[in-house]
């Protein structure tokens, strides 16, 4: 079995904790409770007979990544950068945020995740995709669970190599 640290980061209210809960416990709550500091939990997944233990760090949301304590990122094998498809303010700094994340963890896998798919029409998602300087890796809905499992399973596959 291998263990890897994965960070969930992004602006506040984008649904990091909802993705965290959906992946760890397969639950969802409409109630918004802001994360204070950081919460750590684990789930072990099996990929082609090999066990991968994902230690997921759900970090309190900040408007810009330079506000997040650097020490939280250290030792992470992957970063999941989450934004909210319904709030442009959560992806308007994406270029700057990517630069900061690359600077802190040059070798880590970075996944750009557009969350709250259930609230936006397909055409609007396409528009957001076109406006971004980077491709979106996964479009998810923590509420319906859409693409949440594939997101983490793909990461686990990347860890095995």
């Amino acid at each position, binding site marked *: *079995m*291998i*263990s*890897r*640290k994965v960070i969930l980061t992004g602006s506040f209210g984008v649904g990091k904790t909802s993705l965290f809960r959906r992946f760890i416990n397969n639950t969802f709550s409409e109630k918004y409770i802001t994360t204070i*500091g*950081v919460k*750590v*939990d*684990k789930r072990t997944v099996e990929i082609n007979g090999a066990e991968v*233990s994902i*230690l997921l*760090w759900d970090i309190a949301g900040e408007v810009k990544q330079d506000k997040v*304590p*650097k*020490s*939280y990122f*250290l*030792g*992470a*094998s992957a970063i999941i950068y989450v934004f909210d498809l319904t709030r442009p303010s959560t992806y308007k700094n994406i270029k700057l945020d990517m630069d900061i994340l690359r600077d802190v963890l040059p070798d880590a896998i970075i996944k750009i995740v557009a969350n709250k798919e259930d609230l936006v029409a397909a055409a609007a998602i396409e528009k957001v995709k076109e406006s971004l300087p980077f491709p979106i890796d996964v479009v998810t809905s923590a509420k319906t669970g859409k693409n949440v499992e594939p997101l983490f399973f793909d990461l686990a596959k990347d860890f095995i190599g």
Partner: protein
Amino acid sequence: MVTPEKKQDEALLNQLQSILLREDRATVQQLREAMEDPELISERVGPIIERRMAFFKENFPKEFQVTVDKMIERKLKASQEVILDVIYPVMGKMIKKYVNHQIQMVKDGIDETIKKTFSKRGFFWQLKSKLFGMKASDQVIHEMKDYKIEEVYVTQRNSGLLFGSASAEKTIDQDVIAGMLTAIKSFVEDAFKREREDLEMIQYGTYKILLQNFYSYYIAVAISGSMSSSEREELGNRLLNFAEKNLKKLPSEPDGPTFELVSMALYKKFIQS
């Protein structure tokens, strides 16, 4: 129009009233003067008020207890935080005093027991007390409150991933504990901007987590009971020896075989012994 006869009748009536009501009018005048003089009023009314006050004092609890109780209850509910702020320091002192008193009683009891005991241990305590000046009761208490290692974790410093762990009893997921410990450590060290200083202990009630920091990992030892400074130093040396012997060749990423080896060694060295 008033006739002369009628005028004469009125004069006669006035004269008659003056004669008949002279005394009454004088009394009314006296009363009016008495009412307007504060000294005279207080002289007369004072004793009556005093009597009513005495009655009121005597019967207040009976008449108003329910109302007052309700008022106090309402006030206490509305000002709970203020009241707690006021009584907390006082309560703290009282509890401290009470605990000290109880400890003193225990110590006195132990002293008494030792005096009456002719066992080898009793002689040893007495001898140590004579030689080193350490009260026998302190020695007994010290022996009573031995610490116990409950859990040990060897954790990668940055990632919070476990290289190995051992526990006396089954606890919640140790990977999660190690992750959260690392998050707390990172937060404290980050928040106070002490780059070259490390968090060394977390205390919760009688439970302590000692953190021994190394370059790429740290060892966290959860202990229950109390530990003297010399015992802590001794445990620190045991951890250094353990690291020297077992953690020299840790891989850059924690893996399964390393976890098994380190966990077994931790169990033998710290939990089983």
